[in-house]
């Protein structure tokens, strides 16, 4: 029965990783770049929400609604100032520039908020600690269900946006071929900026869940980036629904690994990620050899 519980908790944890990874997946899908500051952006969103909670005493969810437009704007500006320039000069430049940005964000947060750990758990309402004990060992937390529902809604809404709206079509067209999209009158600059704004906003949502689920500090970002990237790769880079499944696979690996030994949790996730990479890239070579 504890195994069933581990699987249920793994799915909830995985849904959280999927939300974190969603923005990374969007940016890779549209621009073929990975933002190494993605985790720090998520943590920044958590801090912004935290500040609003501190100032107004509002619930974390209300505070997040206040922080959301700020994060959207931030993403827009990030694209136009840093990323747009880096896109023009090779595949390494976006990585180098966003790695530098990651260090800047972490240390600005350190200056502003000290290294103390913070949490949004206390301000998110009583229901976040509620849970249903189905049996002695299996318990389903309200927060876990909320995160899972939100994850499915976010991915579903994105799918609808990309499939049925004009801006969504423009985004898909630009992802497919930016030059051809320009020819039919799509402004790829603004599409890219909108994609990054969306990615940063969803990262902030991940930051909100991080803050409610557990604690965060100014240097929490890199770990979140690694988990988010693992989810994207496990699910298949460039596939939106793959990212949701990849997140859940990562969450399952971590909770099942923890069943063996508490310290194996993160390790199991890393090993799944590396195994997927080996299978995808090592395997291709193996089949090529066999084909010869």
């Amino acid at each position, binding site marked *: 029965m504890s195994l069933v519980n581990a699987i249920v908790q793994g799915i909830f944890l995985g849904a959280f990783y999927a939300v974190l990874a969603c923005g990374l997946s969007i940016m*890779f899908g549209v621009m073929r*770049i*990975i933002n*190494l500051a993605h985790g720090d952006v998520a943590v920044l969103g958590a801090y912004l929400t935290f500040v609003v909670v501190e100032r107004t005493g509002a619930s974390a969810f209300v505070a997040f609604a206040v922080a959301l437009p700020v994060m959207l704007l931030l993403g827009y500006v990030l694209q136009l100032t*840093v990323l747009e*320039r*880096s896109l023009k*000069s*090779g*595949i*390494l*430049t976006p*990585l*180098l*520039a*966003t*790695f*530098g*940005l*990651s*260090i*800047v964000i*972490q*240390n*600005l947060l*350190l*200056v502003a908020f000290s290294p103390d750990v913070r949490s949004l758990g206390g301000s998110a309402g009583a229901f976040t600690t509620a849970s249903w004990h189905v049996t002695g060992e299996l318990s389903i937390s309200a927060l876990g269900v909320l995160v899972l529902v939100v994850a499915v809604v976010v991915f579903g809404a994105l799918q609808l946006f990309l499939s049925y709206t004009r801006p969504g079509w423009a985004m898909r067209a630009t992802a497919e071929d930016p030059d051809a999209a320009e020819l039919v009158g799509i402004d790829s600059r603004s599409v890219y900026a909108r994609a990054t704004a969306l990615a940063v906003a969803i990262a902030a949502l991940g930051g909100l869940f991080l803050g409610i689920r557990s604690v965060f500090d100014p240097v929490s970002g*890199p770990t979140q*980036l*690694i988990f988010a*990237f*693992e989810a994207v*790769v496990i699910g298949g*880079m460039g596939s939106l629904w793959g990212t949701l499944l990849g997140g859940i696979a990562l969450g399952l690996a971590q909770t099942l690994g923890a069943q063996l030994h508490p*310290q194996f949790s*993160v*390790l199991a996730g*890393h*090993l799944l*990620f*590396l195994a997927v*990479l*080996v299978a995808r*890239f*090592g395997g291709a*070579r193996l089949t090529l050899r066999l084909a010869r």
Partner: protein
Amino acid sequence: MKVQRWTRTSMLFTSGTGVVALALASVPLIFDSDVVQKLTNLLILVILAAMWNALAGYGGLLSVGQQAFIGVGAYGTVFFAGLGVSPYVAMLLAMVLAGAVSVPISLFALRLRAAQFAIGMWVIAEVISILVRLDKNLGAGTGISLIQMNQYAPNFRQAYTFWMALGFAVLFLAALFFLLRSPLGASLQAIRDDEDAARSLGVRVASRKRLLFVLAGFGCGAAGVLIVANTLFIEPGSAFSVQWSAYMIFMVLVGGLGTFEGPILGAILLFAVQTIFTQGGPWYLVGLGATAALFALLLPRGLWGAIEERLGLRLMPVGYRVVTSSKQEEASA
């Protein structure tokens, strides 16, 4: 058309570096151990910058996980010294271990591109870090001292470590210098300029990259060995810290990605910045991160790349230069 490799300036400078290396060897005889320890740190930075540049500048491999080899070098030293061999032999063994570990990692890591390679290497470093934390004999999460070094008097110990650092720095810089000047080096620089074009001309891109990757494994392992020899204590949090990658990226980007001299200049600059802002602190790191990002965006070949372009200056020639263009020849004929 005529090409040449050496100019008078570069001959003077390259032989000059030999003299500087010899002069540096006398540092422990003249200065006190505080200065010696600081200069050891500078040499460690030079090695790290040169190795990261070999990967990124020539192989197009941006690694955020070279701390894996730093950690293996540092922990390898403690491990071998614990087996009872002399600490200095343990250091050599640990460096070889780091180089050896890089071979199986390269088999799979080199298949990855761009972000997958960068973060894949980071995850490998994290995995090794977690494995070290699980091992109580290596001090688990709290760290471990290299107690075997206590058999040497502090002054001698510091001097030996400095000479070792100098030896490693000369060894790895010379290895890179001659590698880049050999026929192999021409193919490496072709990969740097355009990987696909190089492949289409018959350059064996994969094996060249493996060569650089293993060299960097050895070099970063040597740096890890020197770090533990210099501080006598190591813990997983600092040995496997991604901060090392941040330093390497800063040094190479500011100094000059894909140039031979640039990373050395970058190491000296980082050393100067560290000496000025001894207390460190977040603002100092904000400055480092912002500078690295700005260089990546605005001056991708760094300070040395800009100097080379403007002045045509090459102090350590690894390529050739055109002395007279065909137009001038026509005019003179």
